[in-house]
């Protein structure tokens, strides 16, 4: 089964988002990686994962 990022990212359409190490929930967000990581790092989350928020991740050609 695919990793579901639709659910955790549903309210994040812009800016940087820090996901929990298991990629199941958002643990921080902000306009920069620094802002997005502030919360998780201060809480001792050791491996947050960064991605940018977007309205649409699917209709692109990278």
């Amino acid at each position, binding site marked *: 089964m*695919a990793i579901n990022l*639709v659910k955790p990212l549903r309210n994040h359409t812009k800016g*940087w988002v820090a*996901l929990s190490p298991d990629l199941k929930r958002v643990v921080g967000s902000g306009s920069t990686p620094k802002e997005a990581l502030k919360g998780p790092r201060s809480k001792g989350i*050791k491996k947050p994962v960064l991605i*940018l928020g977007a309205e*649409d991740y*699917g*209709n692109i050609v*990278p």
Partner: protein
Amino acid sequence: MKIRTTRRDYTGVTLPFKYSKVRSKPSPAFPNKKSALIPLIPIYFPLTDGTSIGYDCIIDSGADCCFFHWEIGEEVLGLDVKKGKKMPKVLGITGDTFDAYFHSIRFKIEGWDIDDVYVGFVDKGKLGTKYGILGQLDFFDVFQVIFEKSNDSFKLISMIPFEEGKIEPYEVTESLKVSCKKKTNS
């Protein structure tokens, strides 16, 4: 590019991954499409404080090189991105161009330490994807990638011999330093 490991592994080791399901907008061409499956993998930058910062990247065989966001270079890795070797006017699929500044960096993929990877950091706001790009140079050079979309999965198979050892962690940048409030006993 080099692959380091503290395990006694050899060439041909396979790492399995799952596709990521992401939000997608319906359109007249695809009126029922609400999501898409893309081959993302998190790479990790180990830091000297024992933590790591992950960064989701797409495996993109159509990209010449690896390209990451500017902010990852500056805020996470502590690079002076503009001091890298410039590749001007990189052409994206839409015809837009951007400048990229290349640095040799290191990161982890699962249990593998990947050293000496040449990555272009792209002008702020110019990298069209919301994740990093792992392309031909220094990624497809060393990994065979097998996509099994019908199974929601893909695999990386290492094609070069491993070297013993680990990558050096990155110093924690000023951007990432966390100030902890001191507890006071009343």
